[in-house]
């Protein structure tokens, strides 16, 4: 459904995309992961036809986005990162507008509004002005506006930003249902657990490149090393016996196949620096450890939040 080949984009001196290749088949969910500035939103915007690539090709359902932008946009539903709704209009009128722009009318349009409102639990809010909705309700409306015309390719750019747990799980459920119906989904997010929960394949974007791409279990199998991670007060010390540890600031990180045994060995090796030890953490094979193995950096440090760590 979506094919991206050798996509390049720069903003002045800043390289946003540096040769991105990606394909998403009908019914697939691809989690686009990466820290701020990794190029996720630029990639989504180019696929949606909002920005032009410097080089490379994007095809949606076999059509080149640059050659037939309006034909391809008909096949795309975009929920941008920033909330975009008409606050003075009712929920129904917000949906109505995007349905009419997709040239839906009559019973078909009414049916689609009811369908998407039901899926995203907006039915009881249809006649409320959008400005009176809670943050989570606004986000659900924002997403519903992208889904109304049943696009074969759905682009969701950080769709759960700022929402509560209930809204997040509802959105994930709807995304899974759409994919089960054959929709290709590009799901850009900071939150690793969401990608794991969606059972999505993963594309890790780092510094404008796809650093890793594949099914979640394959990536975890290939890169999902266990780590024991120590953090200290002040600079990480030199500890005899732990010379192979990766060092960053106050942290030491040791790859291992036996996390329990390695933890015991490390603790006993600390000796006189033990009082400076603040935390010990075992990172089991997960998307977090895949990110670490692929980029050499902890994901939660990159996104500036602890939510991403699994």
């Amino acid at each position: 459904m979506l094919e991206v080949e050798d996509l390049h984009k720069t903003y002045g001196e800043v390289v946003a995309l540096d040769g991105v290749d990606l394909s998403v088949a009908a019914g697939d969910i691809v989690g686009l992961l990466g820290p701020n500035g990794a190029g996720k939103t630029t990639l989504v915007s180019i696929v949606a036809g909002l920005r032009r690539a410097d080089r490379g090709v994007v095809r949606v359902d076999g059509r080149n986005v640059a050659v037939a932008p309006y034909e391809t946009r008909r096949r795309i539903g975009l929920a941008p990162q920033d909330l975009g709704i008409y606050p003075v209009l009712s929920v129904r009128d917000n949906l109505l507008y995007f349905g009419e722009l997709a040239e839906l009318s009559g019973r078909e349009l009414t049916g689609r509004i009811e369908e998407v409102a039901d899926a995203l639990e907006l039915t009881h809010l249809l006649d409320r002005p959008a400005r009176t909705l809670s943050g989570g309700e606004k986000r659900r409306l924002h997403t519903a506006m992208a889904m109304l015309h049943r696009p074969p390719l759905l682009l969701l750019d950080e769709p759960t930003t700022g929402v509560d747990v209930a809204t997040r799980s509802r959105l994930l459920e709807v995304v899974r249902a759409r994919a089960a119906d054959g929709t290709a989904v590009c799901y850009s997010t900071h939150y690793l657990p969401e990608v794991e929960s969606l059972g999505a394949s993963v594309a890790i974007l780092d510094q404008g490149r796809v650093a890793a791409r594949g099914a979640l279990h394959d990536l975890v199998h290939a890169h999902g090393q266990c780590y024991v991670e120590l953090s200290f007060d002040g600079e990480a010390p030199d500890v005899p016996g732990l010379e192979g540890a990766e060092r960053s600031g106050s942290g030491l990180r040791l790859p291992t196949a036996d996390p329990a045994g390695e933890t015991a060995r490390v603790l006993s090796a600390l000796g006189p620096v033990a009082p400076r030890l603040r935390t010990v953490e075992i990172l089991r094979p997960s998307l977090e450890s895949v990110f670490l193995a692929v980029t050499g950096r902890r994901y939660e440090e990159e996104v500036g939040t602890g939510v991403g760590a699994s």
Partner: protein
Amino acid sequence: MSVRRSLAVARHELRLLRRDPAPVVILIAMPLVLMAFNRPAFRAALTEAGYADVNGAEHVVPGTAVMFAFFLVGNVGFAFFREHGWQTWERLRATSTRPVEVMVGKAITPLVVSAVQLFVLFGLGGLLFGLRVRGAILGLVLVGASLGICLVAFGFLLTAVCRTIMQLNAVANIGALVFAGIGGALTPLSTLPGWARAVAPATPSYWAMRGFRSIILDGASVGAVLLPCAILLLFGVGFGLVAARRFRFAETKTSWA
């Protein structure tokens, strides 16, 4: 081009207008207040200019209507800038709607509003202030329609060149006053200084006033407004061409957000 999508945009603009009709109501109510205040002064001015059997409504109604019609120019621009403020512009661009469909859709509502505004002001001008049209009513309709098209095109032009909503607000309001002043809508052209009379034909309001006055005061037929209508439409085409050249759909405008 899809007419359905343009009509969808137009219906959407009407829904937004229905949710907040106050600005348009003010643009209809305020001129009526000004007409009541200014009519006696215009009676004196018209009498001095040699017109007999006049009560002042013959100038104050079309003049005030033309000035307030130009205040609609700001509304044309706001229809774009608020999309940026609500962050819906990118969403709109991401649909299969073409730029020309958006422009046509966004032109329809202000054209309708302009028609309603002129209809109500001329209608109530007759009922409340004794405006008597001596020539062909169809002539008034043609001038009003040409003026509306010119205004919308001017609104597109300002939208294209202004980067912020404050720039739009300032230029649209000052432009309305300047055009009204120099074009002879605020005061009869004969009372303006020579340099202003020389510059007046360079403003659309001059041609709108010339058309309206020829029908209302001189009792002219439709033929007399063809030139003013043609020039108003030429202004519209000119504004539209510059707007089309300068408008960047991918540009992000700074709104209130």
